[in-house]
Structure formats: C-alpha cells, structure tokens
C-alpha cells in the first residue's frame, strides 16, 4: 500500500513498527506460506492441461505470502495498537506444551513398555505436560496454558484411562485456567460433570467409550 504516508523520522528510536498487530501477523502469514510451499515442494505440478496435486496449494500459498507481505508492510506505515504480551507468551508457551506432548508420546514408548504399561506413553506425556504447565503458568498466561493442557490431558488419557478418569482430570486441569478457581467446589463440580457426561455420552447417545482404565 503506497499511500504516501511518511513514517515520522528524527525521533530518538528512528525506525518504529507502527502497527505491531499487522506487522507480526503479516510476517507469520508469510512464514506459513513459505512453509506450505516447502511442504508441497515434492508434489507434481501441471501436466499438460491438468492441474497436479501441487498446483492449487502452490497458487494459494503464493497469494497468501503476497498478502502477508502487504499486511506486514502496511503495518510499518499505518498506526495500530501494540501486541499484548499475554498473547505472545501465552501462544508461544502453549505451542511448547503441544511440542512436549508430541515428543513424549512419540519417544517414551521404551520407558512405559519397560514399566510394563503398554500404550501408556500418552499418559506419561499428559503428566509431563501438566507438570510443565504448573511450573510455567503464571498470571495472565494461565488461560491459554491450562486450556491447552486440559485438552492435551484429555487427548492423552481418554484411550488408556477411560472416559471417567479422563474427564475428571481434564475438568480439574481446565478449571485451573482462572485465578478464581476454588478447589473444593471444582472437585465436586468435576465429579458431577463426569457423571453427567458418562450418562449423556455413553447411555443417552450410545457412543462407544471405555468407562474405566485398560491394563
């Protein structure tokens, strides 16, 4: 966007990002586009008249990259609010939790197998994620981190531990996402919700779930 707006110069800082939201958001889009182009590099493109599997992803990724660049450049020349710290830290640390979960559940099989617990590596991953969350979640980061942790805990425990335990633990972890949490109330509430979910999903909706842990 070349609307001729001159960035104010001569200040002590000199160069300043005027709309951080757009600037960083645009850069992330460019990164996503670059990643998509890289990820689809092996896919065949046009063959004669016909689109190959790689054609459409490349078209869309290229447009995304170009638009991301425009948004980012626009962020340099127009004013906007700064990016909130919570958003940056919360999302970055949340991504770390997800990475930890993936790593542990993929590479901990020897450990859990050694303990005689097959298919329990995801439970181990859930435990690790939970411990890390308790260690790093402070103040305003609680929201994103405990919601992500609660979800990952559910994902890790639903198969091996069954619906009852997975729901209960996950509800308690999620509840910790707010500073207002009251533990006694939360435990009772989690128990009540778990019973309700079990009745609703297993009896009323007839979905095939394990109730209890498998060993």
């Amino acid at each position: 966007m070349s609307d001729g707006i001159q960035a104010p110069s001569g200040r002590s800082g000199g160069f300043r990002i005027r709309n951080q939201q757009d600037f960083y958001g645009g850069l992330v889009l460019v990164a996503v586009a670059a990643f998509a182009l890289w990820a689809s590099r092996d896919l065949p493109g046009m063959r004669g008249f016909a689109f190959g599997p790689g054609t459409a992803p490349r078209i869309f990724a290229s447009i995304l990259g170009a638009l991301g660049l425009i948004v980012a450049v626009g962020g340099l020349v127009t004013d906007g609010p700064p990016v909130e710290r919570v958003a940056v830290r919360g999302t970055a640390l949340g991504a770390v939790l997800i990475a930890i979960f993936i790593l542990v559940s993929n590479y901990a099989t020897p450990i859990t197998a050694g303990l005689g617990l097959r298919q329990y590596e995801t439970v181990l991953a859930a435990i690790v994620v939970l411990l890390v969350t308790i260690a790093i979640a402070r103040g305003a980061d609680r929201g994103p981190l405990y919601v992500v942790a609660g979800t990952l805990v559910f994902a890790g425990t639903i198969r091996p531990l069954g619906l009852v335990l997975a729901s209960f633990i996950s509800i308690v972890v999620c509840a910790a996402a707010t500073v207002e949490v009251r533990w006694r109330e939360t435990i009772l509430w989690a128990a009540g919700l778990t019973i309700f979910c079990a009745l609703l999903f297993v009896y009323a909706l007839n979905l095939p779930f394990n109730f209890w842990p498998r060993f």
Partner: protein
Amino acid sequence: MDLFINLAHGFSVALSPMNLLFCLIGALVGTLIGVLPGVGPVATIAMLLPITFGLPPVGALIMLAGIYYGAQYGGSTTSILVNIPGEASSVVTTLDGHQMARQGRAGPALAIAAIGSFIAGCVSTVLVAAVGAPLTKLALLFGPAEYFSLMVLGLVFAVVLAKGSVIKAVAMIMLGLLLSMVGSDIETGQSRMAFDVPELSDGIGFVVVAMGVFGFAEIIRNLENQSEETRSIVTSKVTGLMPTWPDLKASAGAITRGTIIGSILGILPGGGAVIAAFAAYTFEKKVSKDPSRFGRGAIEGVAAPESANNAAAQTSFIPLLTLGIPPNAVMALMVGAMTIHGIVPGPQVMTKQPDLFWGMIASMWLGNLMLVVINLPLVGVWVKLLQVPYRMMFPAILIFCNIGNYSINNAPFDVGMTAVFALVGYWLLKLDFEPAPMLLGFVLGPLMEENLRRAMLIARGDPMTFLYRPISATLLAIAVFLLVLAVLPMIRSKRDVVFVEGET
C-alpha cells in the same frame, strides 16, 4: 401449486414424531448453550455437531437447524437480561432490550423478541420455499467454471461485508483454503502436506478447526477479561410476560420492516444476520418520529433487529440449499454436517432428497413456533443458568467439546489438534485477524479446487475460460466490482469499522 404440495410434503416429514422430537431437542439445547454469554451460534453448533452424528441425516439436519435458531434466540435472551450479547447478531438488542429490562419490562422485551422472530421466521420460511425451486433450476445450468466463479463471489461477499481490513480477510481465506488442502489429493490420492502423519491423511477435521478457532479461543479470551466483566443480571422476577396493546402496535411496523431487511440481507453472503440486525435498527431509528427514545428502552429497538436477524438466519439457508455454497460461518458448519452424513450440498439435494430439503424447510417454521411456545415459559430457567459463575461454566463447555470431538473418529489426535487450533484462533483474535473467513475458505477449499481443476481441464488449460463463459464472467465482474468498492475507501481514508462480525 407445486409450492404448497412441496411444503405439505415437507410438513409430513417434519411432523413425524421422531423429527418433531429432534427439532424440539435442538431448539432447547441450542437455547441452553446459546444463552451462555460469549457462546454464539457458530460455537454452539460446532460443540453440538457430534451429538447429531448418530441420527439419520434428515433428523440430524433438522436438529442442527433447531440448534441454530435456539442459539440465536438464546443470544437475545442474554442481551436483554444481562447486557452481554451471546453473539454478534444480538449486539444491537442490548441497546434497548437491556434498558427495557432495567425498567422492569424484561417480560415484554423477551416476548416481543420471540414474537418478532416468529413472524420473521414464518415469512422467510415461505420465501426460502418459494425462491428455492427457481434458484435450483438456475444452478443446474452451472458448469465447473461457473461454480468456481460463484464461490469466488461468495468469498468476496464475505470479505466485503466483514469488518476491518479487506486484505487481512482475503489472507484469512487463503489460509483456510491452504489448510483444506492438507491430506490426500482428491484426484490422485497423493498425500499433501501431511508429513507422513497417518492421522492427517484424511485431512484436518472440520469440527477440529471450528471448535478450536471459535469455541476454545473464545473461552481463552473470555478468561482474560473475566475479572473486569461486570454483569448486571436483572434478577428481579420476570413478571408480566405479555406485551401491552400499545407495545404490540408500536412493534408491528418494526417487525415488518425488520423482516424485509433481514430476508434480503440474509441471502447475501457474509455476516448476514449481524448486518441485518444493525441495518434494521438504524433504519428503525431513521423512520421513528422520536429517535431520541432509542437506547432508552424503545420496544421497536428490540423488535426490529430481532426480526431481522431471525429472517436473515433463515434466508441464509437459500444459497446453501440451492447452490451448495455456504454464505457464512454457520452455514459452513452445516456443509460440514451434511458432508459427514454423505450429502453433497447443492442443487441436486432438492431433486434427489426432497425429504431432506422440504423437511428442513418445514422444520424451520416448526422450530420457530417451538421457540415461542417453549422458551417464554422457560425464561426463569435461563435466568438461573446465567447466574452460574463462569469459572464453573467454561470447564463444562470444554469437556463437552473434548468428548464430542473425540467421539467423531475416536481419535485422540483430533482432540490434540483442537488445542493447536485453539492457540491459532487465540492468536488471530489478538492480532485482529478474523477467523470467520478462514473457516469459510476451509469449507469451500475442496469444492473450489475440484471445480477449478475440472474447469481448466475442460478448457484445455486456458484460464480465459472463466471470462469467456458469460455467467462466470458476470459473477467474476461483480466480485471484482465489490472488491474495488471495498478497497477504494480504505485507500482514500480509513474505512469506518461499522460491523463487528465476531460471530461468537
């Protein structure tokens, strides 16, 4: 009169005891979830989608439609009683609705919202039925090139009518399209951008994206603002439900105008219901003899936007049912639901599955009737629900989402992916990128690619085919025109941000 024969057939489907029950459950559960502050129709439908999987297709869609109206209606209840709009389309209702509630007239406000919605629902149901058939015939003339151009137009509409930056919205659509490409290629079956992760070979689940980006991200954001949130629940007994005769007389015109505005705007792709509500309110203020009453508890200020958003909610089914193109995020969810049931939305639905098409239309009317009959007496229950503190509410919502999400494929992977999209959605919200166009792009992606590829193949690789074919060229011309119209004022000066299309 084909129309009446068809409608009668629809009613015979919708009135079967089972479908009646699905409609009732849908309307009730929809209201139940929709009443929760900050949970709009998109999040509600995404959350409740899994419970409809076990049902027959007709029943499932009837139930989902019921959930949609219920959520809409639940949103207005919170607007009036708590001053927190449950969803974007009832933002305007808070202006006068909550003022009425404070003056002890919550009853009439709720009643007129319900009556207005019902009347609007009746009119727009007939409209859907009437317009449906001719539009379907038109759709049958469409080849791949036309379909592709139509989808482009639909997406452009969504961009133009959405809030804020056009470029950012287009970028979001591209992101959605790109995400929809993950998984096996439709034609060759080759794995694309899936990194040999077996769970990704079928692509990213649609519910996963919707739940994460709309439901979870919204909860994370609500948790931040929670301590500052001031809720002024009108706790006094909601008495005197019935509006007085002057109330009704004052609202009659507002309801009529709201219905007309809503019906027209609903058909247009984009945030139909939201814009309709805003437009109807503004219009009502313009034609009023005493505009200063607005914002201080004018009953027309409740009647008009509520009729409009309901009419728009209804007519937004038209592009979906006839052309197979979802005009907004809610309809995108409906496409997802249909696809899961093996129904390809589009013109062939009406001819191949008349039960589904007409049954759903008839059930729209029934759903609206149910909302009036059942929900007004239940207002007390909804008020009670609003007094449940958020610290208890959000873990419940999260666990329902997680269990529901897991149940779709019995895949823990999907649950984990939702956490990823929760973060993506949260990040987007914080950076002021709109998630709704992304979801629309995500849903339309496979269809668009398929039609694009087919059109190119038919035209022997000549991209000019989109311009040589008259219908396609017209559609694209309109799209370009709209885009230019939207971008021009932005270049000249900052575009007014009029509509906040939060959708949740």
